[in-house]
Each structure stands twice: as structure tokens, then as C-alpha cells.
């Protein structure tokens, strides 16, 4: 037979038990949680071993992005290959869906684990990923190979 009130006393026991288990707080910023490998945060360009970016300015990421967050300004060089004037990324508007990295055929961008994006300045809401660099062009590489 259950006396009225035993449920309440059991509740007291449970809360005290949870007290004894200790807090689960992770004291940020002294302690940080490790993100799993697939966690999607900011879009970051990848580079080759010699420091040149892998991006070929194919503009597929720009078309894939549902919110038009990526913008590439491209110009053509004399030998026909492309030159990236500016690769602008609106971090503040990005929803980190990962569609751009999934669509990139050259594996030139990846979603980093950089989540500490809070800032006091509105200028930090927009980033320039690549500026004034030549694209990784297969045609130029082959030409250099044949030249060498």
C-alpha cells in the first residue's frame, strides 16, 4: 500500500542523488568540448603543399548555396586561366548546411571546427577567403609540366 507522500519523499531522494553525482557543466572557456569530425562550422579553403589554394573558381559552390552566401570575383589572365580577385564569404548569414563542400568537385573547401564566431564588430560578419590568387588550374599545371 502506497502512503500518500512517498512519491514526494522519493523526489527528494532523487534530487539529492543527482547532487551527489556532481555538476555536468563544462566550464567554458577553460574547458572545451571536442567536436566530432563531421561537425560543420565555417567554410575554409584548402591548400596544396606548395601553399596555393586548391580552388579552381568553378563557381559550383556559389550556385549551390541556398542563401547566396559565397561570392567569387574572377578575372581572366592572359594565358586563359582564371584569377580569383576576391572570394567573399558572409559568415554571419551562413547556416552551415555543408551543401557547398558537398558539391565542390575539387575538394577545395571544407567545414572547419571554428565555432567561436561571436564578435563585436559587424565587419567580422563577412570574410574574404581568398584574395588575389591564381586558381589551381589543371591547364596551367599541364602547361608548366610540358614547359619543364
Amino acid at each position: 500500500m502506497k502512503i500518500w507522500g512517498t512519491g514526494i519523499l522519493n523526489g527528494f531522494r532523487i534530487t539529492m542523488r543527482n547532487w551527489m553525482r556532481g555538476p555536468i557543466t563544462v566550464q567554458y572557456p577553460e574547458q572545451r568540448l571536442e567536436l566530432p569530425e563531421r561537425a560543420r562550422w565555417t567554410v575554409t579553403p584548402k591548400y596544396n603543399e606548395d601553399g596555393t589554394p586548391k580552388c579552381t573558381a568553378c563557381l559550383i559552390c556559389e550556385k549551390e548555396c541556398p542563401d547566396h552566401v559565397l561570392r567569387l570575383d574572377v578575372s581572366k589572365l592572359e594565358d586563359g586561366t582564371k584569377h580569383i580577385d576576391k572570394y567573399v564569404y558572409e559568415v554571419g548569414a551562413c547556416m552551415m548546411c555543408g551543401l557547398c563542400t558537398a558539391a565542390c568537385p575539387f575538394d577545395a573547401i571544407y567545414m572547419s571546427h571554428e565555432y567561436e564566431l561571436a564578435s563585436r564588430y559587424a565587419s567580422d560578419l563577412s570574410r574574404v577567403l581568398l584574395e588575389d590568387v591564381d586558381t589551381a588550374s589543371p591547364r596551367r599545371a599541364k602547361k608548366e609540366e610540358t614547359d619543364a
Partner: protein
Amino acid sequence: MNAAGAVAIRILAMLLLLLVNGVVLIYMLRKVLGRLHIRIGPNRVGPFGLLQTTADVVKLLTKEDLMPESADKWLFWIAPFVVFVPSFLAYLPLAFGPDLAVTRLDTGLLFLLAALSLIPLGVVMAGWASNSKWSLVGGMRAAGQQIAYEVPLMLAVLGPVMMAGSMDLSRIIEAQKNLWFVFPQFIAFIIYIIAAQADTQQTPFDMSEAESELITGFANEYGGMRFGFLFLAEFSNMFIVSALGVSLFFGGWYVPFLTENPVALSLAPLIFMIKTYMGIFVMMWARGSLPRIRVDQLLAFSWKALIPISLSWVVIWACFQRLVLVR
């Protein structure tokens, strides 16, 4: 030092105790609730977060003093005082040690309960004067609740009064030298803790400031130090009912088996405070663990369950004491 000066010093000491209590209790509440909820509570402001309340007080003092345009200005202004001043008055008869009370009133207990009864008036004033429907609902609930639970509170304290033969709190404590009143008066003690939790509007009886319904109930429109007063009054009420419970049921400043020990007697205020804070810890534990009772169930519980039980207990104990325990 003349008599008036001595009294003034005692009153100032009591005011200081009230303020220090408020600061410590608010910190204690936040830490206790935090630990019960598997989180830490404040720990950044000062070592272990000890300066948190001070920072909050400074914040409250520097806040803009808002009053709703259609509020009743005079009532709105005075309501926090009507809530706070009786709470301070109730500190006066409390006895912290042998000969350590602000005043020794023969009717100290009655004075204390009378002072506590003035608080619902202030709560209703705050709820009405805010001219907001939510505050009004909160104020009305508080009035009904506190009136309903003061009756069992007063009936529950009659048991220790009968056993001690006096309403003076020092004398009641002294009558508990050999046996704490909680053992013979166990039923009165249970009724007392329920009524005390309700009278101070703590969960599970916090209908008047039901946080998930009325946000802060009657204190919705109060900000800055006005809110600080209401908030402080709530915590000092907790201290008062806990101190009263310790005086009436747990032997005040007496340590079992050491009642004649001069060291134990000289540490009387410390022992009293430790016991009071243990009582407050249990109140906070209940606050963190239990859901809220609905307002009609609350009133029904008081009028239909607590009052008949406490009345019967008073009658039974009176008969028992008069007929059986003939001294």
C-alpha cells in the same frame, strides 16, 4: 550607555543581520538550486561566486526606476515597504542566545506572527497598484494563500506554547533543555513546516509568483531597488520561519547532552544560526524538487486538511497535558 542607546544598537545589529542574511541566503539559494540541478551556480564573480549577490545589489541600485504610467503612484511606492518592514519587525523577538534578543517580550511569539500577517497586505498592494492584470492575479492569489496558511501556522505553534507555558521565545527555548519539542509535538511540527513553506511562498506553494505562469506575479512591474526590497523580504521571511521553527521545535541554541556546558552556551548564537540554516536548506531542497500546487488545491488543502488536523491536535494535546501530565 543609556537604555535608548542600547536598544538602538540592538536594532541596528538586527538590521545588519537582516541584510547580511539576505545576501548570504540569495547566494545559498542559487548555489543549492544549482547543485540540485546538476549545474554549478554562480562561480565567476569573486572566489566561488561569493561576490555575486553584492554585484547584483549594485546592479539593482543603479537600475532605472520605472513605474507604469497608469499605476497607483502612492500605493506602488509604499508597497515594498509594507512588505519589508513587518519582516524586519519579526526579527525583534527572536532569541539567539540566553539574553541575546533585541527585546524580551512576554508575547514575543504573538508579536512575530502578527508582524508576519501584515505581509499579505503589502503583496496585495503591490499587485493592485501595478495596474497589470498579471500582477493582479498574482496579488490575489497571494492574499488568499497567506491568509489560508496563517491559521494552521498559528495553531501549530500552540503545541510548544502549551508545553512551555509561555509565549516568550527565550522561555520556550529554555523549556526544551531536556527534550526538544519536535518529539512529542511531531504532528504540529509537520503542520508547521508545511504552513511555513506556504507562508513564505516557496515552491510547492509559490502560486503568487508562479514563475512559469505569471513571471514574477505581484512583483511583475517592479524593477531596481523596489524589486530588491521585495526580493530581500522573501528571503528574510524564510529566515524568520526557519528560526521560529528552530526555537519552537529544535531547542534553539541547546546542543543535546551539552546543555550546561559553558562553551556550548557561549557559542549559542552560532549554534542557533547553524540550525536555522539547516532548516533553510531543507526549504530550498523542497523548492528545487517539487512541482507547484494549483491554487484551488492549495486552499482546499489548507482549509479542509491542515486546519482540522491542527485544531484536533491542539485539543488532543491540551486534554493530554491537563489530564495526564499533571505537574
